[in-house]
């Protein structure tokens, strides 16, 4: 997808090198969070697919976003599908 290649992700407030957006990476992270919430594999995959599509839509008009922005948007949509998984996804960076 064109916007997938064009969007740059600023990581950890610029402390890490900027990366191109990777749909697969986002999908995997949502699958992992959903599985951590003890959801079945099939459901985790379906939810991750839906949430990734939402995020891709949101990214269409944005050439550059932070990894935090993506986490916030993904969490918002994930909450509608699986609140426990959304909670774990949101907490990942603020547990330690």
């Amino acid at each position, binding site marked *: 997808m064109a916007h997938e290649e064009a969007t740059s992700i600023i990581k950890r407030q610029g402390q890490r090198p900027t990366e191109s957006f990777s749909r697969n990476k986002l999908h995997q992270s949502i*699958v992992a969070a959903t*599985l*951590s919430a003890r959801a079945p594999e099939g459901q985790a995959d379906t939810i991750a697919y839906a949430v990734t599509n939402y995020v891709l839509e949101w990214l269409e008009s944005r050439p550059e976003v932070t990894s935090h922005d993506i986490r916030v948007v993904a969490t918002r949509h994930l909450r509608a599908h699986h609140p*426990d998984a959304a909670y*774990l996804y949101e*907490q*990942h*960076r603020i*547990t*330690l």
Partner: protein
Amino acid sequence: MDIASSLAIVTLAALIHASFQLSVSVLTLLSGHAIGAKHSQARVMRLTFGYVSGVGVMTLLALSFISLIFLHLFGHDAPDIIWAIACGLLVGVGLAVWFFYYRREKGTSIWIPRSFARHLSDRSKATKSGTEAFSLGLTTVVSELLFIGAPMVISALVLIQLPAHWQLVGIAIYSVISLLTLFSIWVLIGSGHKLSAIQKWREDNKGFLQFAAGGALAVLGFFVYVCKIMTDVSGTLL
């Protein structure tokens, strides 16, 4: 100080140690990554058990090491000035825990150097074997020394006064009790409880845990001061 009072102080110090949350946070992250990576429940349990064992062994080694240093420096009875410094340290760390233990933001982030936190977070994700989990447990105890140092120091001062076999009993009591929280979380994860529920409980009750740990440190410092220094001073005067 008699044996019962000494072991009571060691037990309270170990309970305070158990109330600190860094090792629990790492265990939560480690199990989350292991479950998310589609590992079997048996493998999740092996990894998390490796981690809990690492924390236990490092706690045991750290307390033994501090006790050994004190034994070499002071013999079987440390001078009162050292006891006074240790009591001051307990009260000081207690106040610091009240004001600074958790960062003022959502979640359960605590005031340890961010480079330590990032390292532990990255390692919990990269850990694939029981041995790696064990070494992660060792590292976690080192990262937490800033807070657990004070209860360990007072326990070591108490332990060096005891006869050799009671020293071993004291070290065992400290190690087992300091692992209680971690062991409980390990059992909860093993019995299929949701990580989100565990993390939610920790987030909702972090204020209480912070108050309890800080308050208990100050109480322990005051108790040891009265029990040891005041008794010694009044004994000298009489």
